[in-house]
């Protein structure tokens, strides 16, 4: 057959949340054995409906996050100070669009079209990482995003790149490689400000104060009570708990923040050396949920921009879509 035609492009529309009925127990067992053996699941393989549904959701949200994530940093492209920062920032935001492209392709391999995913993003039906609902208020915010938000994302991506779904792993492999450049660049901008003039140092401290809670929120609430978590981990869709990843982030980045003389705006942040776990102050999970539901400082603006893109460029699609084109699921 031609292309990924064995992927039913309409199946995703009928996937219901938590639907575990009607799965053939033999097929499920073989599927689990494959995953336990460390094999990758490819688009052609049989998979439980819930696996397909969860993966589409996860990869789609990741793709959306890259696309929307381009906006707070993109806001500073025209104002980047100096050639080095200017070119690096354009390249970085370009990479984020590139990652979105790779991730939408990976999600498409499960049957949902790019058009459908962008539609759901524009209408607010599907989500993206909450951290991007906050504004980059100053240049120092760009440095914080470039170093710490990227750092948090890398913790997430590195762990998930060991997951079970082939196309997602392949996309993540390339993404992780490119993120290494982003992190270096972000760290450099961060350190330049921290070790620069008093004014620059203060600008960075102010930005850190603004972004600390969103960074804690980035990994999500503690998933000890999560119902789905166990199944997702068994299927290697979710490779580690939220707490585990947040902890790794603290391990890697707290020392780097402190070594340049910044203060972390959380007096309760401390590592329990006996358990290896970090304790931290209440980051206000009510705010997290409020922002996710649409009440953050930039939710409306993010969607407005994506809708502007749609409207402003519709004429381009209208002019260039060939009548003989065929709808195909890409070979991710």
């Amino acid at each position, binding site marked *: 057959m031609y292309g990924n035609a064995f992927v039913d492009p309409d199946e995703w529309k009928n996937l219901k949340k938590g639907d575990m009925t009607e799965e053939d127990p033999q097929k499920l067992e073989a599927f689990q054995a494959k995953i336990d053996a460390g094999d990758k699941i490819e688009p052609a393989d049989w998979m439980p409906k819930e696996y397909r549904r969860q993966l589409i959701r996860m990869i789609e949200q990741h793709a959306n996050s890259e*696309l929307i994530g*381009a*906006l707070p940093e*993109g806001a*500073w*492209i*025209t*104002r*980047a*100070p*100096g*050639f080095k*920062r*200017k*070119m690096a920032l*354009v*390249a970085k*935001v*370009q990479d*984020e*669009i*590139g990652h*979105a*492209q790779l991730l*939408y392709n990976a999600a498409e391999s499960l049957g949902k079209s790019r058009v459908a995913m962008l539609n759901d993003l524009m209408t607010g039906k599907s989500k993206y990482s909450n951290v991007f609902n906050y504004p980059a208020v100053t*240049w120092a915010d760009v440095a914080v995003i470039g170093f710490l938000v990227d750092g948090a994302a890398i913790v997430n991506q590195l762990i998930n790149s060991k997951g079970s779904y082939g196309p997602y792993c392949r996309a993540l492999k390339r993404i992780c490689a490119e993120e290494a450049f982003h992190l270096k660049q972000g760290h450099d*901008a961060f350190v*330049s*400000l921290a070790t*620069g*003039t008093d*004014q*620059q140092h203060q600008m960075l401290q102010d930005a850190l104060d603004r972004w600390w809670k969103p960074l804690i929120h980035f990994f999500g609430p503690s998933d000890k009570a999560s119902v789905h978590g166990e199944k997702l981990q068994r299927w290697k869709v979710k490779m580690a708990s939220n707490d585990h990843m947040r902890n790794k982030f603290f391990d890697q980045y707290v020392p780097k923040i402190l070594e340049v003389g910044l203060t972390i705006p959380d007096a309760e942040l401390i590592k329990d050396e006996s358990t290896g776990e970090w304790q931290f102050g209440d980051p206000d999970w009510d705010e997290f949920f409020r922002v996710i539901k649409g009440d953050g400082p930039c939710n409306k603006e993010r969607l407005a*921009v994506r809708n*502007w*893109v749609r409207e*402003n*460029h519709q*004429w*381009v*699609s*209208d*002019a*260039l879509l060939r009548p003989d084109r065929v709808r195909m699921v890409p070979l991710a």
Partner: protein
Amino acid sequence: MSTQDATRQLLFQMADDALIMGHRNSEWTGIGPTLEEDIAFSSMAQDKIGHAYQLYKILNAMGEGEMDKLAFNRNEKDFRSCHLVELPIGDYAFSLMRQFLFDTAESIRYEQLQNCSLTPLAQLAVKVKGELRYHKMHADVWIKQLANGTEESKARLQAALSELWPYALGMFEEGDWQAARKSEGLGDSESEIREKWLAAVSPKLEEWNLRVESAEAVEGGRQGYHSEFLAPLLKEMTEVFNIDPLASW
């Protein structure tokens, strides 16, 4: 005008054009028509900013100052960019058409500079060949396809061309450096480049069914008299840098 000044004039003109053009094009990063095209257009913006950097580097070697200072710490009236590159981005047809007109001129300019007397500039002209080739190919493919698209895409292209044409002619503004530029082996005169440029763009515009009306060139940029758009652009571009021009960012 002495050779040194003619050399500086040419370098500033080219560097400022590249910087402002690259800056304008970078405004599309993240909000382009498709993901793939967003990525492609962004590469071209980076190329332009990179060319500006290399040109300012040559000026730096001539004692004009640090590259960042030349780009971020000069007065508006000291810029030598043409009005064409200063205009806001408009719709995508406008940006594509501007890209086509500007890059065709740049390709011709750099091509003949490969033999110029200023060695670092001649070397740069060889280096940028590949990038400029891609920029031209990009414009050709996009405009051709849109010109064969819908009534709307054709209308937008025509509107863009009509608005841009007088500004495009302004790329070839001449001044009292012309004689010195010629006599010291700094390449073709602006009129010569314009003639080559007209010979290159006219058949393409005809192929694409796009018309130009004779117009008067919008000039002044090469003498430091700029469009209303440059000052706000520079203000935005230097907003962070000017918080502390002496700081290391």
